């Protein structure tokens, strides 16, 4: 039996506050811009943070990401689904693929049954206005909900397909329908680790020959009252009242870090068998050389006590490095979650130190949450897309960080050209799941 097939990244489609695709994100990073801004979608003045990073319609219009024949289905897309659909379109364009969604008449680049799809998703909150309008039609005289009226008639105020907007697997389902991906398909729901775990799973599926390419990543929006409040309840949000400077809010690994800011976004990557990419003459951005995952044993649900020693982080990275056959010394940059949430930052820092030792202080970290917010299930894919692009360009984009960082190369820094051999991307999910991916430069 021959060994597993080599897997490469041939396209990246981040979707962030700067729009869909890598170019708008990369230039925003290089220019030191943040997409964090005062929340406009609802009155957030009662929340700990009034700020979020969101994708304005002038930078991403979901209608343009959906083929005309599929416009009707766009009505049952929650925001999370729109983001995934937009990211997939960007990734496919970047990879130079033709699918049914690009041209229904053309022969697809990859046979539909050889095309898989793994898209991480979060807990999608129901649109509060839509649901409450229906609930408000079934109240008792005292203003409380009458379940009897709701069951009898009130629920009829919800559109029949209401629930389909909120099933997490609908991100992958819409994408597979639009682009006719009939191969293996999964929806991983492990919070911030979802993107990394999905990309790891796509890698395995291609390695073992069950698909030739996969659309892989994650997307999420917590830019709604329930999503934002749950993050506040989890103690992850920084305090940001009126007049705060959005560029200074998220300060990863800084001694005065105060928490993160929610973002909406994510990313889809095209993972492809190296031989398939070669056969179609496509130069990949990077090789997906190794993958590892681990779980924090000390986590207990809402307590989410990660191992302060970062053992789960080091375990995942060590597994990924061993899988890649890459030595820690060959890692020239790291793309961690770097959320600015002090407890998570601390775990990442000690986990990285366990793997990289004293050299850690000199390994540049690729951080993006200060620019695009914490995109939850979408965050890992953004980091991995950036890591792949950094390898392809042999360049680290400018880094935003208003805090003072000791002992790590994670403070504010200009963009720079650097030789990069391998980059490790890691993500730590609320709940204790950790994913690590090792990317290698294309020789």
């Amino acid at each position, binding site marked *: 039996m021959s060994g597993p097939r080599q897997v490469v990244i041939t396209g990246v489609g981040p979707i962030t506050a700067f729009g869909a695709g890598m170019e708008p994100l990369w230039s925003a990073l290089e220019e030191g811009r943040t997409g964090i801004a005062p929340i406009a979608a609802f009155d957030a003045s009662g929340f700990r943070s009034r700020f979020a990073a969101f994708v304005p319609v002038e930078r991403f219009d979901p209608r343009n990401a959906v083929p005309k024949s599929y416009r009707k289905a766009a009505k049952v897309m929650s925001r999370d689904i729109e983001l995934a659909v937009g990211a997939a379109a960007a990734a496919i364009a970047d990879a130079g693929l033709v699918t049914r969604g690009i041209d229904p008449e053309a022969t697809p680049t990859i046979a539909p049954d050889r095309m898989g799809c793994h898209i991480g998703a979060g807990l999608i909150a129901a649109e509060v*206005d839509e649901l409450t309008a229906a609930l408000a039609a079934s109240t008792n005289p005292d203003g409380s909900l009458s379940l009897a009226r709701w069951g009898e008639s009130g629920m009829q105020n919800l559109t029949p397909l209401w629930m389909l907007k909120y099933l997490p697997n609908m991100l992958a389902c819409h994408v597979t*329908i639009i682009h006719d991906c009939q191969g*293996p398909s999964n929806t991983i729901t492990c919070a911030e680790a979802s993107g990394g775990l999905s990309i790891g*799973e796509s890698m395995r599926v291609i390695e073992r020959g069950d698909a030739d390419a996969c659309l892989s990543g994650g997307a999420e929006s917590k830019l709604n009252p329930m999503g934002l409040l749950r993050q506040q309840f989890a103690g992850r949000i920084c305090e940001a009242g009126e007049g705060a400077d959005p560029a200074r809010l998220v300060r990863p690994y800084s001694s005065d870090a105060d928490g993160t800011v929610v973002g909406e976004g994510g990313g889809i990557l095209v993972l492809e068998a190296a031989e398939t990419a070669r056969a179609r003459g496509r130069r990949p951005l990077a090789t997906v050389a190794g993958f590892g995952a*681990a779980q924090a044993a000390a986590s207990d649900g809402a307590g989410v006590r990660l191992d302060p020693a970062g053992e789960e982080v080091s375990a995942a990275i060590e597994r990924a490095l061993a899988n890649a056959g890459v030595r820690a010394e060959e890692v020239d940059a790291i793309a961690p979650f770097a959320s600015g949430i002090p407890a998570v930052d601390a775990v990442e820092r000690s986990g990285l130190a366990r793997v990289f030792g004293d050299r850690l202080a000199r390994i540049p970290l690729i951080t993006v949450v200060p620019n695009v917010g914490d995109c939850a299930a979408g965050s890992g894919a953004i980091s991995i897309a950036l890591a792949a692009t950094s390898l392809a360009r042999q360049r680290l984009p400018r880094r935003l960080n208003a805090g003072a960082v000791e002992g790590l190369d994670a403070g504010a820094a200009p963009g720079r050209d650097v030789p990069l051999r391998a980059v490790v991307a890691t993500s730590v999910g609320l709940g204790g799941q950790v994913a690590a991916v090792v990317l290698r430069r294309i020789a």
Partner: protein
Amino acid sequence: MTSPGADDRVVITGMGWVTPLGHELESVWKRLLAGESGIAPIDRFDARTFPTTFAGQVRGYDLARFVKDPAVHAGAGLNTAFALGAARQAWTQARLDDDARLDRRRIGLYLGAGEGVLDFDPYVASNLAGWDPATKRVDGRRWVEAALRLMHAEREIEQEPNMPLAHLAREFGIRGPAYNCLTACAASTQAMGEAFSIIRRGDADVMIAGGTHTMIHVLGITGFNRLTALSISKGDPTKASKPFSRNRDGFVMGEGSGMLVLERLSHAARRGATPLAEVVGYGSSADAFRITDIQPAGRGAAAAMTGALRQAGLDPAALDAKGRPGVHYISAHGTGTQENDSIETAAVKRVFGSLAPRIPMSSVKSMFGHLIAAAGSVEMITCVLAIRDRVLPPTINLHEPDPALDLDYVPNQARTADVDVCLSNSFGFGGQNDTVIIRRF
């Protein structure tokens, strides 16, 4: 680390479930073979005016019987509570605690756990407190003021679908790869398939795999009622779930959890564990058709079955050494909707051709109801028990056969059968399909 191919056989060494028919392996199996139904009027909330008033609820379940320290899991939601009970049974049956050399970094989790149950009353009260009838919008400021007063932080975070993972990791000290997938009704079959793949690849030696879910709550029943996917039959609720019947009118909601210990054979042998069955094939596909409808020819379902058969080295058109088809029992997705049952039948025929009528295929959803994300894992447990006892669980309530459905659905009565290979199907809303095949060890 073991290289793939050299030592990649995977067996099931433990199983447990929490179901509408009970929370103990053997007694639930007996009730299934007796054709009992776990469906009854909903009493978790007042559903009397809902189009659907019945479901398969888990009853009399006490988490404290299954965990070391219930206080650790005090804030857990129902999904997590069910998962802990099912996993404890599986862990105990596999006798993992007896192994002094157990390396918990080589034990992983792959669950298909559903989203947690909304903390409904505070949620609705907050929404209504923020509602402005003039603008038809919820005012964010008024909403959050109410929510901060009414909602409970821990109960909100516990609704994240990866929380069962966190609790299981804590309870069993698991440190290996951990995943939750949520591909609707396919989730736990997918979880078992991926767990199997992770062991085969060498990334773990033991995986706890399965699903857990409840959607027996106001918005769960509402959502499926609006989709007109649920049975709304009147009369005796135990007769409502009637897969493959001419008069089937939708599925019946169930809830619960099924958990299995999947283990590298060499690891099981080293510690003297008893293999209950061997996992031999896994297939996954997407319909890529419509979010509301199944691809009418059963293309996606057939692709999942074909992928699993290929991996198992089974030729669907060939007879085995005993002159039987290569698969001896199919645990159907068999939801009881018009669409699923006819397309699943078509897909089985598409895959097995003229041998299809010779393969018995039943749906335990006729008795449990549909456990949604957890359905595949409880159904896999019935497959293992079917192999062990050489008996097939029936499809109950099949008194009016659909003339268009002409396979052997094991109607109404359990049946003894020479069964060594079982195939279990799960198809998710939106078109994700998964199949796992097991074989007598």
